[in-house]
């Protein structure tokens, strides 16, 4: 087992890849799900950011998506094993329904994160508490450092994703 700060940083990278991939697959940067997300996107764009990145930031703020699913799955695995992660997926689905959202992104992100975290704990390289701290660091890089640069980064990723889907399906 590695030292604890190194493990937390590696877990942060894994969590970042997980939730950004799931959010991009479920097209969160395409449009604002609720009207509050659209307002946040307009304010981010007015201060020099990208509009699609602003849509994704607004969607993360105003309903529990894959990032919340990753955090709660890590909490569930930390508290009560594999069953806790699956129970967290049910809770994320109910929370999405409360916030007027279809809730596929959150549930899918929670299930994949449960598999990843449980596998990492079973392999003996990580502890489940590393993934909780890693997810907090991962969400800090999207929402907490600078909204301008984070939204431009997500906008660039969204451009790659949208080109990929037009080639596949018109």
């Amino acid at each position, binding site marked *: 087992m590695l030292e604890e700060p190194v493990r937390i940083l590696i877990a942060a990278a894994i969590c970042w890849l997980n939730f950004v991939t799931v959010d991009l697959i479920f097209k969160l940067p395409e449009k604002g799900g*609720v009207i*509050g997300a659209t307002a946040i996107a307009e304010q981010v764009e007015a201060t020099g950011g990208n509009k699609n990145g602003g849509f994704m930031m607004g969607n993360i703020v105003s309903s529990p998506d894959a990032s919340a699913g990753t*955090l709660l799955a890590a909490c569930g695995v930390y508290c009560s094993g594999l069953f806790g992660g699956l129970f967290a997926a049910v809770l994320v689905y109910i929370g999405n329904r409360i916030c007027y959202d279809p809730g596929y992104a959150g549930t899918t992100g929670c299930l994949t994160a449960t598999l990843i975290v449980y596998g990492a704990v079973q392999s003996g390289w990580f502890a489940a508490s590393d993934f909780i701290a890693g997810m907090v660091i991962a*969400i800090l890089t999207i929402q*907490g450092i600078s909204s301008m640069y984070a939204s431009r980064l997500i906008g660039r990723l969204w451009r790659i994703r949208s080109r990929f889907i037009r080639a596949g399906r018109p």
Partner: protein
Amino acid sequence: MIAIVVCAVLAVYAGLRVVTERNTMKKLPFVNVISFGVAGVIALLLPHPLTILAAAAYFVGSTLESNAIASTWAGGMRRDD
């Protein structure tokens, strides 16, 4: 041991950013970081099967609050009188 300190310190950092940000709508992402950190602190404080329900209830409640504030600020909910 280090994990819970990381969660708490990042929550305080986001709190300071909320206070110093001027634009009302751009405060809400930092509030989201605070609720992630506090949910992590709640889950790491005592490992009990009911803790996951408490963390999820706090997170969903905080998200619903941000959603209501944002949509009221944007004038989304129409009054019917």
